[in-house]
């Protein structure tokens, strides 16, 4: 447009205008940087992990990886061909091929077989610790926000709980080792792991539960009490159900954390390797709680830092990481579906 048609709303360069676009670009760049980082991490794991997890032939999924225990991989040359075999397969091969009895094979620990015991262990650890954390956490939150007299003491307790959230997970691991494993003599066991992990996520669960309880309008409580309900009747029928979606949202974060932490379980619940599955060889019900398990994050840690690296370990590492991500996503999806169902039922 020609200068002659200048009008009063025409844009003029100004400091505010320049800041506007600068700030917009800063925010936009920050978001894209995060997106790219996330895409690189997930892409790397999915790309390399899917080579292990999927297969090119039917059923297109590496079933053995999901259903078998880890075992050593043997690599050897037989009749001019390079062969890779898991431990059991290799032994069977030697009995059927007597001439191969003295064959020289290189062995690589944990590079064959699957990760079934780790999947089972992680699922057990997550379920047990979330049950403990939700029971303790929701109870404490109900007490703090509904029953306790608000004052300095409660404020201090809240502050202490918040600080607990900042404690490094290795400290929880050592605490669990000291209290549950050694002092209470539970040994390295599911139970010790459950409580250690539960303690670790308790601050998140308590804080979020309190927030969701506070978000329930006061009118619902008053209306219920005015009808002659006791405090507990009011909370059970007319407060907790409405707070549940929020509590579940927070526990989704808790699940991801519980499933992924290595430090708290490495001293309290996790075994490097265990032949038996958790339900095998139990002589009594209590044995179930006092056994250690294998776990996905600990398996990743062991495979990637405790054993000599070679060309064959990588696929186990990435495969395990990929499966781990999928499991966390699955559990989280279940919680989100449940939460949305509850949310739709109680809307206000």
């Amino acid at each position, binding site marked *: 447009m020609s200068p002659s048609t200048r009008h009063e709303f025409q844009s003029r360069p100004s400091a505010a205008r320049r800041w506007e676009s600068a700030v917009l670009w800063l925010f936009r760049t920050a978001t894209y940087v995060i997106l790219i980082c996330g895409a690189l991490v997930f892409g790397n794991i999915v790309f390399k992990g899917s080579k292990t997890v999927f297969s090119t032939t039917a059923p297109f999924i590496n079933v053995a990886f999901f259903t078998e225990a880890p075992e050593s991989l043997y690599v050897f040359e037989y009749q001019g061909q390079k062969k890779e075999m898991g431990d059991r397969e290799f032994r069977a091969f030697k009995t059927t091929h007597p001439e191969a009895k003295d064959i020289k094979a290189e062995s690589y620990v944990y590079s064959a077989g699957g990760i079934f015991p780790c999947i089972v262990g992680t699922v057990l650890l997550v379920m047990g610790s979330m049950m403990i954390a939700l029971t303790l956490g929701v109870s404490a939150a109900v007490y703090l926000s509904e029953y306790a*007299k*608000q004052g300095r003491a409660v404020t201090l307790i809240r502050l202490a709980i918040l600080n607990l959230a900042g404690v490094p997970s290795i400290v929880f691991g050592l605490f669990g080792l000291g209290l549950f494993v050694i002092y209470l003599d539970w040994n390295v066991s599911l139970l010790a792991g459950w409580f250690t992990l539960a303690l670790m996520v308790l601050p998140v669960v308590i804080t979020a539960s309190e927030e969701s309880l506070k978000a329930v*309008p006061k*009118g*619902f*409580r*008053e*209306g*219920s*009490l*005015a*009808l*002659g*309900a*006791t405090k507990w*009747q009011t909370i059970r*029928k*007319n407060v907790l159900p*409405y707070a549940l979606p929020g509590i579940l949202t927070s526990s989704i974060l808790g699940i991801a954390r519980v499933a992924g932490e290595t430090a708290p379980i490495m001293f309290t619940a996790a075994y490097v390797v265990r032949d038996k599955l958790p339900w095998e060889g139990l002589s009594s019900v209590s044995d179930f709680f006092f056994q250690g398990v294998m776990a996905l994050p600990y398996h990743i840690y062991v495979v990637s830092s405790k054993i000599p690296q070679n060309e064959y370990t990588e696929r186990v590492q990435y495969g395990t990481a990929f499966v781990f991500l999928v499991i966390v996503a699955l559990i989280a999806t279940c919680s989100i579906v449940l939460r949305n169902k509850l949310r739709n039922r*109680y*809307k*206000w």
Partner: protein
Amino acid sequence: MDIKSPFSSPASGRSIPVTTSPAGATLIDIDHVDFYYGASQALHDISLKIEEKKVTAFIGPSGCGKSTLLRCLNRMNDLIDGTRVAKGQIKIRGIDIYDPSVDVIELRKRVGMVFQKSNPFPKSIYENITYGLRLQGRSNKSDLDAVVEKSLRGAALWDEVKDRLHTSGLGLSGGQQQRLCIARAIAVEPEVILMDEPCSALDPIATVKVEELIQELRTKFTIVIVTHNMQQAARCSDKTAFFYMGKLIEFADTRAIFMNPANAQTEAYVSGRFG
């Protein structure tokens, strides 16, 4: 005959006969009550007698203590930390409701309440009405159905909602929600219904409906209503108490308060010169 006090908890055994007195007899006797929120005194030496099966209105400017007094009558103030009745007694049928032997749960079953902001629970209309009954352990379906219909008819809401009893109470309009809350309160058959500015959030048409409802309810219940709206007090109450700065300035027949107030402050307030 030995009949249990209506408010004593089942475990404690103070026995005072329940008498049904004719309309006009004193039901609630507020006797020289001082009330504190922490260190600040909200009520100063309040004495008044609320009569049975009459509508008593509390009027006065904001912060004058009328809602506080109302919430003393079913001990809703207990929910606020640091509140206390420092002096005096509130008696219902001669029983001091702040006595340690009184079970506040029993008291609230007998003294129902409707709040300023309508607060239907985020449940179905049916569940809203039966909430109080289920608390008492009543679960017989036909019994509950009958109460739901009776209460909704009593709250003049039946015809509007009878086809959607199982939809959410929050789907109703503001006025319907408030009448639902009234229906919920009368479902447990209290003796007294406390109404804390029940129409302050309603439009004029919904207000008229609630006021008409109050006229119907007065035959069965003793009603105490707090209101900002002086015309409302004039229209629907038998007795009116005027409060100012935590003190009871004047308490008399509604007609007298509005036509011929004894106190200069009352006259200034009802004629709109302040407040």
